């Protein structure tokens, strides 16, 4: 028995000893993302982006950075236990969440444990509190860009179909206020539950109002099914969206269509990402990449005694001082509410890939 215990202690000490050899303190960044369910590709993309960001850090950082992943299936309740596990079991120094639904749950947990939290979410509420930040192009900015683009292209009657989901509804509310005074009429304003597969009657209803463009904001797979059913209904009117075309795995369905997207990442990010992982970055991946660099920036610039990690308060105030940081989503500044501002972009699907619409001929509204 004694020998057994001794063997255990020996094994344990062998296992633990490399930790003592480390010179630099370790900063652990935990991410609560969907690794299961129909949004698992989002979590995978973010994991890859985090790995890429870590791999491209300079060698002379003051601290060693580590990434930990936890699955939340994009569900609020699972996000609470994932965040708690990351913070209390894995001792994360910073956490990252994706989506408004989970971000709103992780925020109060991070605030309470005094841990920096970066959301990738359209809801501004995710950034509420001292320790919370949000890096996503705001719904107000995207809605503004959509209203401006519709006006510029001369569309007058918009039939809009929205998914009943937090981020989408935030865009919808803001879009409606941005339409005021533009002379653009919202002929259909329909909200449909996630999981719906049959949009045919909603489409027939929208069609009967004679719109000159359809605005559809849904996630995969509802988006693909909806656009397919619009085409099956014999509708040739243009279809547009906010963000959603970029997230779809059937881009061929939207060939030639323009839409408003969140901030565009630098070309080098895409090529690096594709080279390393063999596929294009998914939703939120560029943001996750930037977030790692922002957190590193915060830690590296926060004042701290040598060989010791800075206090969370110092990290937070260092983060609030970030101005025009060279991120892959453009020059990034963090305001006093913890929001990272990035500008919306207008894109078009060309040969199955989203490209910036600046270089493309403008589409004219087709008569029905």
């Amino acid at each position: 028995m004694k020998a057994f215990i001794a063997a255990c202690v020996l094994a344990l000490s062998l296992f633990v000893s490399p930790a003592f050899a480390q010179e630099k303190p370790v900063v652990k960044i935990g991410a609560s993302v969907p690794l299961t369910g129909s949004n698992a590709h989002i979590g995978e993309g973010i994991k890859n982006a985090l790995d890429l960001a870590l791999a491209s850090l300079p060698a002379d950082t003051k601290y060693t950075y580590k990434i930990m992943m936890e699955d939340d299936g994009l569900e609020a309740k699972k996000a609470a236990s994932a965040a708690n596990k990351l913070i209390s079991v894995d001792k994360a120094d910073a956490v990252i969440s994706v989506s408004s639904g989970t971000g709103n749950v992780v925020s109060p947990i991070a605030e309470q444990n005094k841990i920096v939290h970066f959301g990738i979410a359209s809801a501004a509420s995710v950034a509420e509190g001292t320790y919370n930040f949000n890096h996503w192009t705001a719904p107000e900015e995207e809605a503004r860009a959509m209203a401006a683009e519709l006006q510029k292209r001369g569309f007058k009657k918009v039939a809009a179909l929205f998914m009943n989901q937090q981020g989408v509804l935030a865009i919808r509310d803001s879009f409606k206020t941005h339409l005021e005074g533009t002379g653009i009429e919202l002929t259909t304003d329909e909200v449909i539950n996630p999981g719906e597969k049959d949009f045919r009657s909603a489409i027939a209803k929208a069609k009967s109002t004679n719109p000159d463009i359809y605005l559809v904001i849904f996630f995969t797979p509802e988006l693909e099914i909806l656009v397919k059913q619009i085409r099956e209904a014999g509708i040739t009117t243009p279809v547009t969206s906010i963000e959603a075309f970029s997230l779809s795995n059937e881009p061929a369905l939207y060939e030639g269509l323009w839409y408003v997207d969140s901030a565009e990442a630098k070309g080098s990010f895409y090529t690096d990402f594709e080279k390393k992982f063999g596929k294009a970055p998914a939703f939120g991946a560029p943001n996750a990449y930037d977030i790692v660099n922002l957190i590193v920036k915060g830690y590296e610039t926060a004042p701290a005694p040598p060989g010791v990690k800075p206090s969370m308060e110092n990290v937070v105030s260092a983060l609030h001082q970030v101005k025009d940081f060279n991120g892959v989503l453009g020059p990034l500044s963090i305001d006093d509410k913890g929001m990272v501002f990035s500008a919306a972009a207008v894109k078009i699907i060309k040969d199955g890939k989203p490209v910036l619409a600046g270089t493309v001929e403008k589409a004219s509204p087709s008569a029905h």
Partner: protein
Amino acid sequence: MEYLINISILFSIYGILAVSLNLVMGYTGLVSLAHAAFYGIGAYATALLMTKVGLGFFETILCGMLLTGLAALAIGTVLSRFRDDYYIIASAGFTVIVFNILMNWREVTGGAVGVFGVPRPMIAGTVLTSNLSFLGLSLVFLAVVAGAGTLIVRSSFGRALKIIREDEDVALVFGYRPLHYKLAIFVISAMMASVAGSLLASYLMFVDPSTFTLNENVFVIAMIVLGGLADIRGALLGAALLIGLPEALRFTGFPDDIAAQMQKLTYGLLLIVLIFIRPQGILGKFRI
């Protein structure tokens, strides 16, 4: 530590749900799929009354119980017309309808956005911000619910329920009116589920409709079938096992997609196997 506290809070919330549903399912023999609706009404009552009206947590629990009680009275009256599988399907209807109201009545419920910024409870001027103190409170509620459940099943009222479960005609001979008894226990059970909802809303500081679905209801049924029909301790055991299982799987190192499915596979298999080898569940005393 914080992590264990989180799991324990979830356990106490599901424990309340399992004990309350067991009163209806195990002791009275009614397999109800309307329980998720009552859980949801309680959660939204607390979330909305605390954020919009500014009531205290304990006042909202009472309001939630009252509201849920009235809803259960109406729903229970309708359900009393059905038996067996028709009862199950009809009760599922109420969960779907309540879910859709929560999802689509945006002006009141916030729709899919949900309600966030729900405060933590305040006792004697101190807000229970730490999870440890919240765990204390939720365990007290669990103890009260489990205690009330035990009292009910041991009382003459509880004995009447069991007679009704076994044979309604016999119950009539003894002078019990099955309809009234079934309705009474249905309302009591719904009010307990409402308490679980209130705790969830204040714990997560956030509610949205996605929690209050048929799947959630089936999950609680699995807890009862596993832990034990018509046994209060059995319901608690079932809740502990099914809450602990997925959390344990987090540590096994399986890919997450597989781990999530393994959880589902395990509880599905448990349901099937238990019906064969031990239809009353691990600690149960009754077979449906």
